[in-house]
């Protein structure tokens, strides 16, 4: 696939990030740092604030206070510049059901002003192994194939930062394994990846560092090396209170 090296260092720096919806806190003063090329995996129970954090990072949601900086650029000050370098794979594919995979990729490619679009579409479609279904309407594809097309959409403009919000949700084990392989093959480059997941085993496989969010706060933070031989399920239960 087209896995070019991003031109500039894209570290992520989150400081004092708070998000209020009405009177309830979704995030309470999140601080974290992700180096360029690092893969951060965020665990946490439902309602912990994982999706809110990813949405703020992706510029979809504005924080109530605090800041997110990508390579020193405040997301709030220069959202358009940041969006060129960031991509999100979420629960939803963002693809139009009544358009074909090719038409969707062409549409998003134009939105991101991707040069040499036809060749890049061919590359990413080959990478996600969707060539035989390229001219099928997205609505006719299974959820697993749609999620592959969504990953193709996400990497089409070669983003420096990839945000993955529970990309395996709703997939059967086979489709989930394919998605995991695809996400695994994104690793190893200079692309910074932030992924949220409920799946502890998969998360530990893909992450260089991990955090556990609970009720809008970072309650645990460690590198993969530090987690090492710990029984991570026990750690997770301990910090989120889910094991009680």
């Amino acid at each position, binding site marked *: 696939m087209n896995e070019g090296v991003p031109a500039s260092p894209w570290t992520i720096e989150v400081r004092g990030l708070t998000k209020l919806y009405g009177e309830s806190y979704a995030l309470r003063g999140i601080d974290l740092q992700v180096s360029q090329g690092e893969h951060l995996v965020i665990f946490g129970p439902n309602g912990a604030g994982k999706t809110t954090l990813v949405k703020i990072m992706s510029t979809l949601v504005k924080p109530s206070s605090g800041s997110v900086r990508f390579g020193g650029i405040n997301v709030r000050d220069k959202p358009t510049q940041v969006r060129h370098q960031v991509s999100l794979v979420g629960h939803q594919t963002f693809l*139009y059901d009544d358009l074909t995979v090719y038409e969707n990729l062409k549409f998003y490619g134009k939105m991101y002003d991707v040069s040499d679009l036809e060749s890049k579409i061919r590359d990413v479609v080959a990478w996600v192994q969707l060539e035989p279904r390229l001219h099928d309407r997205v609505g006719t594809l299974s959820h697993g194939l749609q999620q592959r097309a969504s990953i193709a959409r996400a990497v089409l403009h070669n983003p420096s930062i990839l945000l993955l919000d529970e990309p395996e949700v709703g997939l059967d084990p086979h489709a989930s394994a394919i998605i995991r392989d695809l996400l695994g093959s994104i690793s190893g480059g200079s692309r910074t990846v932030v992924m949220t997941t409920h799946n502890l085993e998969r998360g530990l496989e893909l992450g260089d560092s991990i955090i556990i969010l609970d009720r809008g706060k970072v309650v645990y933070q460690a590198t993969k090396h530090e987690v090492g031989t710990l029984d991570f399920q026990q750690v997770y239960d301990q910090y989120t209170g889910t094991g009680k």
Partner: protein
Amino acid sequence: MLTELRTKEVIVSVLVFALLVLVIFSFAMGTGAGTIEPLAPGILWVALTFGGVIGFNRIFAVEKENSHLEGLMLCPMDRAVIYWGKLAGSFTFMLAVAIVVTPIFLALFNLPLFLPRLAFIIVLAIIGFAAVGTLFSAVAINTRARDIMLPILFLPVVVPVIVAAVKATAAVLAGRPWGDMLTWLQIMIAFDIIYLVIATLVFEFVVEE
């Protein structure tokens, strides 16, 4: 646009609705000379306005259903670009409806078929409808009762355009000169400019959480 061309789910509904309005009024009011002229402009604009509401209801609903709006909002462009894209789509869609409905209206009510000045009025009014309808469609999708919310928001705001369009159309159908409809045209032009500017400025705050 391509999605709508494939599914035709909105344009067919709006066209059927608008044509039904015309047919019902033509039966209810009759089409005899002297009785229909004062009512005809209102009938045309009732058909186009209420048909427009049905169409505007779907503009952002379609984007919301599969989080397409979020996909668009992730793209590296100003939020206002999304508004102008949707506005262009709404305008084209309403114009297509008017192109079909207006000749049928003129034929049903035994009115002259060639009225270029009416086309000018329709374009001005549709710009205003599309400017407000696109903005309020974005507002309404984030509410629970979005199908009800849009007409409640949209119709009071577009009253000046509806009144101006009806009055100007009446002048055209009566064969009066441009001067007689100038005030109404000026109202529509001013409305279009004001709401295009306002909608462009506030759209970002409407779509962001």
